[in-house]
């Protein structure tokens, strides 16, 4: 079989396993829809998200402003659409970075064992003992609030989590006979780690990636909420909740709807994570 056929085979198999857990389709489609909305923000958003209109401020949802307007008279729907974009960019980049470095640290420590393992994981444990929000707060406070710094802060707080997640299956895999056999074939440690162990732990990592994506979006929202997120007037979901908060009783739509969208993102990412876990588990794949 050539590469294309193998890819098709892999896809078909994944599709089968994915099908067993119907809710994972809900997660995937929902996340995909939200992603599409974020991507098509310039087309979809009916108004400019930062354009203020004092006359129209705090308007309730109507046919003109589908989800109402905020304190500055900006269209909530347009801001949500653009805010999705920021949330997705921050969430996915920070998770990707954390996954990359966390996997390197964790699997290296797990594979080497001994003092290296104790040292690396000791450092990770210390980092992990600080709550994610506090840690993010600290880093943003030091570096200053900006989109880039927020990504760095979130990535740094998640690296120890991914290191832990990568380490455990690495240790399990390194004691398998096929790793022993790889050593008997004279393969170098790097090759064994990258070619033989990594594909075996990828499933676990993908699952955790989708789950932590939800956390990253949530934390970004929380940091924005306390004013340490992305600078105004850029629309972010968390920032919108904060700005709408002072009028929550008279105009709840300004913070309610962005809150619901955060809920949707977190919810769909979690569902997708569940489905991925099944789809990528070699044991479930093996069942014919």
């Amino acid at each position: 079989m050539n590469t294309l056929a193998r890819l098709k085979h892999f896809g078909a198999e994944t599709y089968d396993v994915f099908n067993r857990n119907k809710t994972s389709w809900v997660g995937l489609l929902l996340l995909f829809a939200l992603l599409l909305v974020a991507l098509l923000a310039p087309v979809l958003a009916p108004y400019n998200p930062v354009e203020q209109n004092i006359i129209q401020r705090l308007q309730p949802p109507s046919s003109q402003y589908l989800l109402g307007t905020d304190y500055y008279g900006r269209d909530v729907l347009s801001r949500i659409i653009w805010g999705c974009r920021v949330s997705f960019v921050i969430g996915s980049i920070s998770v990707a970075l954390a996954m990359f470095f966390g996997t390197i640290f964790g699997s290296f420590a797990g594979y080497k064992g001994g003092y290296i393992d104790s040292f690396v994981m000791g450092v990770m444990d210390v980092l992990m003992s600080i709550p994610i929000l506090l840690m993010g707060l600290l880093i943003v406070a030091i570096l200053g609030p900006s989109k880039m710094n927020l990504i760095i802060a979130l990535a740094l707080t998640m690296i120890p989590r991914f290191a832990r997640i990568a380490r455990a299956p690495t240790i399990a895999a390194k004691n398998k006979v096929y790793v022993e056999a790889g050593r008997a074939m004279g393969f170098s440690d790097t090759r064994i780690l990258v070619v033989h162990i990594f594909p075996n732990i990828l499933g676990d990592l993908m699952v955790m990636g989708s789950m932590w994506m939800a956390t990253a979006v949530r934390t970004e929202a929380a940091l924005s909420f306390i004013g340490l997120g992305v600078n105004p007037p850029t629309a972010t979901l968390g920032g919108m909740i904060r700005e709408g908060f002072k009028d929550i009783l008279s105009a709840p739509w300004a913070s309610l709807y962005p809150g619901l969208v955060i809920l949707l993102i977190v919810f769909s990412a979690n569902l997708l994570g569940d489905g991925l876990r099944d789809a990528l588990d070699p044991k479930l794949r093996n069942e014919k």
Partner: protein
Amino acid sequence: MENYEYVLEVENLSTAFKLKSGWYRATEDISFTLKPNETLAIVGESGCGKSVTAYSLMGLLPKHGSRIDSGTALFKGENLLTMPKDKLRKIRGSAMTMIFQEPMTSLNPVLTVGSQIAEAVFYHNDQSKAAAKQRALELMDMVKIPAPESRYSDYPHHLSGGMCQRIMIAMALACKPDLVFADEPTTALDVTIQAQMLYLLHELKQTQQMSMIFITHDLGVVAHVADRVAVMYAGNIVETAPVKELFENPSHPYTRALLQSIPRLDRDNKDIAPIQGMVPAIDQMPPGCRFYSRCERKNECRPDLFPALKELKDSPNHFDRCLLNE
């Protein structure tokens, strides 16, 4: 071909492991030689140090908690035990390879079997990936896997145990090794497949010009595959001899007792005699002969002398480690 009489010449190899109360030798004073194209079977019960010997020679002992106390092991004239790790790693997998006991778990479950063979070829030879794949297909054909092209992209769980073991053999032979360690390669397979494997290995040994060290606890298998046999007991080689000589004239009391304790079709099985007693624990090894406490001739012997492995006077090439045969 370089100039050497023996593919492998092991002398006085001792490997120790760390227990809570200190270092203990799992194998002691292992010495044997292996000629080109020869098959040496190492037999012995579980825990007698067969695999430890192989792992010591391959440099596959765990980094922590084990060490090689003494000995030399000349592989084609070069000492494996003092060689730089990188050099040993290059020899391992190309000139010296290993077939494992559990074929189903020895293959990586997430990689196709063909790519795993190709990787072995690709890694040790300066070849393109396409050439490595071609060679992998040849190897699959050589180990008699039907329709190699369609099996190439199968995953290990698609194949049976016997097929997986064929793949392992193909991997081990990928770089035309001079020496193959077969660590109980048939133990996990059922009897008919065992016979197929032994036949295949025998045939490959003829065509591929390689020496083999066959580790097993099955004397029936030994009789099939081996040219020479080394019998191990409690970390020592107690007797080595050409296979026919060993079965006809066993000289060490342990070998004799072992042969007597196996039921055979061509013998009245009433006189099957189990060996009384237990193997001494690793931290309670006696100073003298390790078999002394269970030996049927211990009354004629003394417990405090450690016998050396020496050639018997009346039969050349037959060595044993018994005070009574001195």
